[in-house]
């Protein structure tokens, strides 16, 4: 294992805002993909699927880098990512629309009110389901939450 220092997320299993590159408000208003993949693992489907080449990697083990100005928030990377580590966040008025991968049953319906969970699985209030895309076994769900939860909520739970 060597004597290298251990990052906090390697102990806890979840990231904090400090671990991530946060887009500007302008970029968030347009809607961009937040890639929560910060380890060098041999994987690159997000690079291949991106239609505007906004995600780049030097080689397959590189950490994906995203150009928030190029990203159109098209959500294709959300369902292809094997690590379920990509989310699309879009700010609209006083609300944040968070698009996340969801692999549990039952699948919520548009209009459902669900629990919004953060990266530790703690409840951060309620969310409204506004879009459900079931084209793949990884269902892609868009929820609406308060603007201040844009970078905090990453999962949902059905009651």
């Amino acid at each position, binding site marked *: 294992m060597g004597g290298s220092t251990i990052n906090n997320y390697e102990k806890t*299993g979840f990231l904090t805002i400090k671990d991530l590159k946060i887009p500007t408000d302008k970029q968030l208003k347009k809607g961009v993909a937040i890639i929560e993949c910060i380890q060098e693992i*041999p994987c*690159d489907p997000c690079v291949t699927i991106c239609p505007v080449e906004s995600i780049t990697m030097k080689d397959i083990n590189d950490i994906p880098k995203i150009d928030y100005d190029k990203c159109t928030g098209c959500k294709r990377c959300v369902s292809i990512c094997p690590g379920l580590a990509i989310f699309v966040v879009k700010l609209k008025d006083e609300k944040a629309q968070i698009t996340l991968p969801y692999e549990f049953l039952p699948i919520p319906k548009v209009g459902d009110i669900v629990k919004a969970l953060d*990266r530790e699985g*703690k409840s951060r209030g309620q969310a409204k389901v506004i879009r459900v895309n079931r084209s793949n076994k990884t269902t892609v769900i868009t929820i609406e939450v308060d603007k201040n939860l844009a970078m905090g909520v990453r*999962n949902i739970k059905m009651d």
Partner: protein
Amino acid sequence: MQGIDGDSIASALHVNGIKTLSHSLRFYRSRGFFCGIGKCSSCFMTVNDIPNVRTCITPLKKDTRVLEQDRVGVLSYKQFIDRKRKKIATDITIVGSGPAGLMAAITAAKQGVPRILLVDENHLIGGQLIKQTHKFFGSKEERAGIRGIDIAVEFEKQVKSFKNIKFMLETTVIGCYNCKKVHKLIAVKRLNDGDQLFEINSKKVIFACGAMENMLAFPGNDLPGVYGAGGVQTLMNVYGVKPGYKVVMIGAGNVGLIVSYQLLQAGVNVDRVVEIMPKIGGYHVHAAKLRRCGVPIFTSYSVKEVYGNNKVEGVILVKVDNSFKPISGTEQDVSCDTLCIAVGLTPSIRLLEQIGAKTEYIPEAGGHIAVHDRFMKININGIYVAGDSSGIEEASTAMIEGELAGISAAASLGYDKNAQKLKEKCKKALTQFRSGPFGEKPRICKEKIACCWNGGINY
């Protein structure tokens, strides 16, 4: 008692609430199944008067009589006495139809080898792919973003489309002999009316036998309810049977993290994941998936003992210090009905040892492996190895190694169309896969194997 079509005997018993499959010889302790894939001996029962049947991989058939065997099994009649062994001649035999074996068969078939035989002891093609419901990592060539189960279906279609590939399922290779021109494999095929012995004479043999799960030593580790993580995955994802209601997972490597997530998907409560190392060993993205579902991960913790009356009722966990010694006073009692063990795998090399392969103990490989060259050939002419049995790694790299072994074996038979180019392509893909920080272990493993091949290393 009833099961449904597609059940194994063990899964049907489990769904009927029977978790104790046998008792230990000396102390009559209850024993349940462990590996779930036919690698250990934990699920031996007497089936239709035949003792020592691995019930975890034996398909349930109509009117099957299953009895618990509490002593050493005794054969009530001579199974093979009236049956002549059948002889088969073939060019390449591949033992194991997991990702490595399938890829080897497909590659050799594409190269034009006329007779390829794929042997597997399970009743389904695909090895452990058939329970991998998660999406694979890697690049497009290695089917990244596609689920293991879908890869298995795709492979099965491909294998069946080749006229030069024949397969024998439910067939166990029990012996292999290194002969001068052809290698002799002795195999038993399970048929409806008893077993049939086969003698397979094959010019080349590729061993892609996979690996088996490691056990941990602690009091109570033999109680029914202490299962290998892969066994649990098989039970859930192949047979649709929940292993229990509340699970504690030991090991936060990728297997532990992925199986925990799949338990949640199956509606099973995962209380926590416990890891003896100070950090999570698997990919962060897998840990993050669990954490945002509310499952805690305890690093620097280990299992002290499992308790219960003939079944798991709870586990005592304990914090460990920097040298992995338990710190007294930090014990935690967690009630659960299933303890899942995901602490690594050991390569299956028994057949390779039998045929006389030069073996070496390499910690990074997960145990003893057959020493092989860059193109997967071992020290015996015409014998190749691929996948986990050549060192524990990922399914993606197993596929590439299988491809490499397939090309090598085909080329040695004279079917060497573009062989050099194809081999280099595979080598490049493998190097790329192993170049990141998570590829360090297999990289060291393969470097050590290369050292052994070039004359050996002294420890």
